[in-house]
């Protein structure tokens, strides 16, 4: 088919691709134990960015540099390396605070991932504050990270868990939200951008509704922070969470933002070193924020690498990152809708985040993904940790292509050709 005249990309994709050596990989042959020889075939087309993004050289360098020149435990050390590591680790909190519009490092807790951030609040706040008569409001498009967590904390505390309906277009039914959220709503946990539908939810509006009823709101930003400018103050979130590995950073780090006065009043979560001020055999007192919530040796190298990842993204500019993905998402949406037997979930192409989940009639998503992999195209197939939403959509699984700063229209063309190949194979 003839592509329409194409506007230039919002960013210099070729230059960006140069920062990611993994994009030079060829795959598609036998899977090998990493490091052994392999029978490679085709250049990798990586469209699984919503699961994890790749890592640019400056971030890899920041990690190697840490281990090679100032690796040390932090906080408690008077010696030179420990001071350097402490300053770098604390600065990383400041950098994150600035990036998402938090007041300062006291509002920024480093966790292992988004999932742990959600559990931290569920355990440290939920177990102590929730009880029968309270309710927690989620949405039908929640990721398991919040859905399973609040479901189980609800069971333990007797709090009721409610789900805001997702409508035909994959958007939240805001009338239903206004019905569900009432004066007994102690907490709402809402995904900012759906990792399955690509929907961008009106979290600011939801925050207002929840706050009017005296509740708190936790916004799951795992799919927003990597892809668009985010300001936690503007949306008035009480808690906000995201993961380093989805935003050019390393595995093993997530961020929990919390309003200072809310975190201040919360009990600690993990107990141990670094988070205490004074310990006797009988009792303990807690450190100041954010250290009160970072027990044990923290994710030092990962925090420093996240700082480098944020520097990398801001150098590109978050508006630009967002625009680039918008171009790709719309292109992918348009190309896939050429096929009548392809079902796409979520809102239309010009009103969605940079991911497209879909199914091909008569082809199981896992078969589709295997066949795409034969074409060196990496997509995710499964329920994307939104099983109940998939149940509602009436499918066991879907395939999901998700885009990032280094993806191109040509890669989407390869995707579409491979999808077409699968259609024909199974026809």
């Amino acid at each position, binding site marked *: 088919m003839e592509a329409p005249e194409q506007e230039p990309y919002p960013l210099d994709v070729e230059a960006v691709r140069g920062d990611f050596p993994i994009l030079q990989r060829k795959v*598609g042959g*036998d*899977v090998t*134990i990493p490091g052994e020889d392999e029978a490679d075939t085709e250049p990798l087309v990586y469209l699984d960015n919503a699961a994890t993004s790749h890592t640019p050289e400056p971030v890899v360098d920041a990690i190697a540099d840490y281990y090679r020149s100032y690796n040390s435990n932090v906080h408690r050390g008077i010696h030179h390396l420990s001071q350097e590591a402490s300053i770098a680790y604390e600065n990383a909190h400041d950098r994150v605070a600035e990036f998402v519009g938090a007041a300062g490092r006291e509002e920024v807790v480093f966790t292992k991932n988004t999932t742990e951030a959600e559990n931290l609040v569920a355990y440290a706040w939920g177990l102590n504050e929730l009880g029968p008569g309270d309710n927690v409001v989620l949405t039908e498009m929640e990721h398991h990270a919040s859905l399973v967590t609040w479901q189980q904390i609800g069971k333990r505390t007797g709090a009721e868990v409610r789900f805001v309906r997702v409508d035909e277009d994959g958007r939240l039914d805001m009338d239903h939200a206004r019905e569900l959220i009432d004066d007994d709503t102690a907490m709402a946990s809402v995904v900012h951008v759906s990792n399955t539908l690509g929907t961008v939810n009106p979290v600011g509006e939801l925050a207002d509704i929840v706050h009017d009823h005296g509740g708190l709101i936790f916004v799951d930003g795992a799919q927003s922070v990597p892809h668009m400018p985010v300001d936690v103050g503007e949306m008035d979130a009480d808690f906000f969470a995201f993961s380093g590995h989805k935003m050019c950073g390393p595995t093993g780090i997530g961020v929990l933002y919390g309003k200072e006065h809310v975190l201040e009043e919360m009990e600690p979560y993990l107990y141990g070193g670094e988070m205490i001020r004074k310990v006797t055999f009988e009792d303990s007192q807690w450190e100041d924020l954010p250290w009160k919530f970072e027990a044990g040796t923290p994710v030092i190298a990962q925090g420093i690498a996240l700082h480098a990842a944020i520097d990398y993204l801001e150098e590109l500019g978050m508006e630009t990152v967002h625009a680039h993905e918008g171009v790709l998402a719309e292109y992918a949406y348009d190309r896939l809708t050429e096929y009548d037997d392809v079902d796409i979930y979520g809102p239309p192409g010009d009103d969605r985040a940079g991911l497209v989940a879909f199914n091909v009639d008569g082809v*199981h998503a896992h078969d589709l993904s295997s066949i795409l992999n034969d074409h060196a195209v990496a997509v995710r197939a499964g329920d994307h940790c939104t099983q109940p939403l998939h149940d509602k959509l009436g499918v*066991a699984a879907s395939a999901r292509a998700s885009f990032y700063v280094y993806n191109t229209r040509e890669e989407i063309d390869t995707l579409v050709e491979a999808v077409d190949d699968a259609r024909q194979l199974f026809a």
Partner: protein
Amino acid sequence: MGIGGGSDMYRQQILDHYKNPRNHGTLDDATFSHSGENPSCGDTIRVDVRLEDDGETIDYVAFSGDGCAISQASASMLSERLRGMTLDELAAMDTDDVTEMLGVDISPMRIKCAVLARQVAQDGAKLHEGEIDDLDVTITED
């Protein structure tokens, strides 16, 4: 060393069995029936087995279910393969026998799909012979 999988996984035979499943359905006169699922793909398989009068030899097998091509084709092929085998021979089938039957390498992430039907048949036989009890549904594990 390659671990297998990839390009060959959908050779003609698999697609043929997926599109035209053999012995698909349920048996009213089954000696035993059992169901299972592979949560990773959402595959489900039910296997109905009718034994010959010796109580050992498999006379006929039907299957039903839903899921990916690998799981459904594997069930279809197995339903043919099992006819005439004894329960002991069924019990002895391992993963290699399944991939050999399929005639293609199965990638590590899809192996659960491939072995589901065999697992269900084996568990069904064990339940029938009283070697295990109170297994409601077989769930494939790594």
